[in-house]
């Protein structure tokens, strides 16, 4: 089972993607959610850039748009995992899942298979 599917099954997220150095490396967003993915990538990248310039210690950003929640979690300086969830998703559980599965995300990022 993929990590995305596992998170879906636990009711944490709808879809997710992994970014490295601002580039999309892995994604479970279906084609019909292409626009959602674009908004998530651009907005969370902008937010984390602004954070870098102005503040320290922030590794998590959530943006609620309509009934959607876009969440970004920094895994390290260059890697960010982004999720689309229902607007009332439990962000504490998502955060905990990431902490418990950080290595799996890095493994996925380092996997040579195409995204």
């Amino acid at each position: 089972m993929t990590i995305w599917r596992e998170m879906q099954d636990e009711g944490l997220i709808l879809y997710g993607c992994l970014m490295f150095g601002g580039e999309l490396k892995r994604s479970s967003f279906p084609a019909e959610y292409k626009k959602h993915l674009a908004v998530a990538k651009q907005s969370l990248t902008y937010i984390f850039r602004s954070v870098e310039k102005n503040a320290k210690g922030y590794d998590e950003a959530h943006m609620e748009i309509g009934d959607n929640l876009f969440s970004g979690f920094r895994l390290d300086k260059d890697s960010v995992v982004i999720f689309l969830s229902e607007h009332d998703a439990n962000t504490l559980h998502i955060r905990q899942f990431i902490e418990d599965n950080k290595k799996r995300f890095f493994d996925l990022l380092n996997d040579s298979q195409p995204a």
Partner: protein
Amino acid sequence: MKDYKILFTGSVCSGKTTAIRSLSDIETLDTDASASDVTVRRKKNTTIAMDYGVLELTSDARVHLYGTPGQERFRFMWEMLACEFAHDAIGMVLMVDNTRKDPFRDIRFYAKEFSDYLLKRRLIIAVTHSDVEPSPDYQEYLSALKNLGIMTTVMFIDARDPRAVLGIVEELISAVERNIDWDSVCDRLLDNNGFTLDFYKPLYEETLLDAAMNKRGVLGAMHLGDEQEILCSNIDDKPTKNLMRNIDRLTDAISDKAGFLGKVNNVVLAGPDVQTLSVFNDKSQSLCLCSDRDISLPVLKQQASDLLQWSIENDYLA
């Protein structure tokens, strides 16, 4: 003597105290205090512990009426009322203020807070202030509740009107107490309690900033206008202010360019060792908060929503 109990709950200004006053045959026990936070925008006093009244139905049946405080910071009283004073209530009345930005959010919030309590008793949703804000209407409530999986009775009432509030009691009690002359109870209430129209008197006295600082866990606040200009702020750190204004600018851009998703409601930044930063949007203003990282996101969102709804910018509610 048969004693029934009904618990009234709902957000600040939804009309709980007024509804109990409209019904009570005794001088109601109010634990009001001068509102010291955002509540002051809507009313002078707010309930801090509970409301209590008694309605005589027949010579051997009466209803004890309990009202929770509306403000979330007095939620310990909600539990005390649900578990002790009104643990054997026949039903709960959720008062929903129709002028709220998202009345359905209030329903979700209170239905969740009282989910265990509602397992064993009826819920009635009493919508107030529909004379000020008619939307959402009855049909919209029914479909929203259906979507939420809540099967219940919805009644649009004026909390000042004993006839309307008595209808709720009748809905709850008539199934178990059949020998009540509701018309004569209603006449008595109208004679004794009357029907006054002095309930809705907003008092605009406090800035949004003062109100924000009275919220649990809020450490700093900044109020932005529609061009990201600072209307007021007590956040001193310039980079933090810049960051929040940048994010507010971004939310405007996304709301414009990605309209298919809807409006950006809020952005929250968090980290393991830092204060939580959040930007909440509402029409042509935004509220930026620095808050304790232990405050949960749902609580933070509810607080910000309350603050923005009753800010000066929304004085159309007056």
